[in-house]
């Protein structure tokens, strides 16, 4: 891992920023505030997502990490009472700009959910759905190829190649989740958001998914929300710690886990609260 050592000189202020590395950030949150009705769920979060890196968002339940993740592809739009303030950019484009179509955005920023949620269709149709609606594949052969490469990338092709036409819901939990990842990468998004993708899986399936995330990093930018600090330490290059709607600290994973600047981060990773 040839990680550029980032300084991550964050003081105690909640809006602490990791020092920008030489690469320009893929996505950038600037003073992001989220309200559910009257209740404010996120307070002025500034967070950069670096390209081709895995960024882990950790923190106790209800700290706003999932909320922030769902802001990144505007999945919060579907919640009526949810209101987002501040600015989030993808390649310096404001994704909350009124001229930007959230549907187009979600094709560029894909998502994998906590609970595996394959469509009640065949494995093939699950993966082919994205390319079909976006028209990225013209012929049946193109779609066949996309399905095969996506399933291969998700490490599932060997297991399902003889039953592509069977329902995706008939797979085991871990296979379903890898199917969902295959479905997400079939669209070829630039960023993949993962919301606790392993929380419903057993350790073996989890290990497979983690391995997969590490491979996907080559081609995609990944943001992952996780409750498992070991998982964050294993798969991510950068880690952001959220607490009570604030971004407490963000920095290199190694630094966060060995030498956190904030006492709350220290407390959380050593298991004193959360």
């Amino acid at each position, binding site marked *: 891992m040839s990680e550029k050592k980032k300084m991550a000189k964050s003081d105690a202020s909640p809006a602490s920023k990791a020092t920008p590395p030489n690469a320009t950030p893929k996505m950038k949150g600037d003073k992001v505030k989220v309200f559910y009705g009257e209740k404010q769920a996120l307070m002025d979060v500034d967070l950069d997502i670096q390209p081709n890196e895995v960024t882990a968002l950790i923190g106790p339940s209800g700290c706003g990490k999932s909320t922030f993740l769902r802001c990144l*592809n505007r999945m919060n739009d579907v919640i009526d009472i949810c209101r987002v303030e501040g600015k989030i950019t993808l390649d310096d484009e404001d994704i909350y700009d009124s001229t930007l179509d959230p549907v187009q955005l979600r094709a560029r920023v894909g*998502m*994998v959910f906590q609970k595996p949620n*394959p469509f009640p269709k065949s494995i093939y149709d699950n993966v082919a*759905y994205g390319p079909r*609606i976006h028209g990225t594949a013209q012929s049946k052969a193109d779609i066949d190829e996309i399905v095969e490469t996506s399933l291969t990338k998700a490490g599932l092709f060997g297991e399902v190649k003889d039953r592509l036409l069977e329902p995706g819901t008939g797979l085991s939990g871990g296979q379903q989740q890898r199917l969902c990842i295959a479905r997400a990468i079939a669209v070829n998004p630039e960023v993949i958001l993962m919301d606790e993708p392993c929380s419903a899986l057993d350790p073996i399936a989890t290990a497979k998914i983690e391995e997969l995330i590490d491979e996907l990093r080559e081609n995609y930018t990944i943001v992952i929300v996780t409750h498992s600090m070991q998982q964050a330490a294993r798969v991510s290059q950068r880690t952001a710690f959220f607490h009570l709607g604030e971004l407490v600290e963000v920095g290199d994973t190694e630094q966060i886990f060995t030498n956190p600047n904030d006492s709350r981060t220290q407390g959380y990773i050593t298991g004193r609260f959360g």
Partner: protein
Amino acid sequence: MTDATMNSKPGTEIRRPTLTGERLKKRYAAERRFRLYGLGSILTAGLILVFLVGSITGTGYTAFLQTYIKLNISFDPEFLDPAGTGDVAQLASADYGGMVKKNLRDNFPEVTSRRDKRKLYNFVSPNAGFDLRTMVIDDPSLVGQSLDLWIKASDDIDMLTKGYVDRTLEESNRRVSDTELVWYDKLDSNDRIESRFNTDFFVKADSREPEEAGILGAVTGSLLTLVITLLLSFPIGVMAAIYLEEFAPKNKWTDLIEVNINNLAAVPSIVFGLLGLAMFLNFFGFPRSAPLVGGMVLALMTLPTIIIASRSALKAVPPSIREAALGLGASPLQVVTHHVLPLAMPGILTGTIIGMAQALGETAPLLMIGMIAFIVDVPGGFTDPATVLPVQIYLWADSPERAFVERTSAAIMVLLAFLIFMNILAVMLRKKFERRW
């Protein structure tokens, strides 16, 4: 330890639930009682159903039989074609009624008095002449011939054959007089009385003569009406449900609309009839008694049912499916048409068929728009005057002739058969569209 300190005050002993004794017995007894109650209610409902269907079938099955009398009929040229031209127009307008009467007199030479003759004429259906007319027009060579033919009996004789006339009663209390009984027994002993399957009941429309009355007019009317109802209420209802459930913002207005839809489902159906009368007939001037207007009124009545059922079917689709599709970059419309609607379809179809079954059995709103009329023709289109099955049942139940009693029950059986058919269709559609997730 932690449990103990949490559940009890410090210092008290830890109490664990005992698995024997009074409480357990009570619990088992309560469960047994509950099961018995449930079984009891199912049995009660089943018994009532068996009784209902049994009594309807018991009274109604005889309507599927019709008595015929074998008579020697001579196609007398004197009545049919006095001039001997062989002209079809002349054959069509001939006095077949007179011919039937003459043949009856010839078959019973012993009848001479005027009063007895009238009784004799009452033996066969007043429409028997029309049947003979059809025969002659189909085959003009019959003129001049003499044949033994089975002629449809009148309703009184039909009732006598089916055993609904009590011979022990005084003559004045019976529809069939003693002389008629003598004639009948003579015919019967000569094997000139026969019960046949009553095809007319299924191929004719309403009539004042019970033996001529059929269900086809009402069945056709019901079908045409339901087609209109389905075409109007299904698309409108499903569209409204999809919009309200998937697209409409949740605010005061949508709440108001929702409350109103739920209220509309409880509005007495006759009110919809009044609305139809005021709007479709008086304001728009649509034809009276027509399946078109009937279908529109029933569509108004069915809409709330379909909307409510469709909304709950849409609500039952797990949100994770919507999120998955949205997360892949599907537009809200694609989410609905590709994923939500197919998954909700079984529920929507069930709701629709329940609504249609309700509409099929509805009488009150149709009375207001004139579908209670007595109509002797099978309707040929959406604007022809028509009646529907439940109205037909009501009309027959209201008729004084004894023979309409069995026809009322038979019509109810046809209506029930229709409902069962629709329910089977609903189950099959459910099976076809059902997908597991």
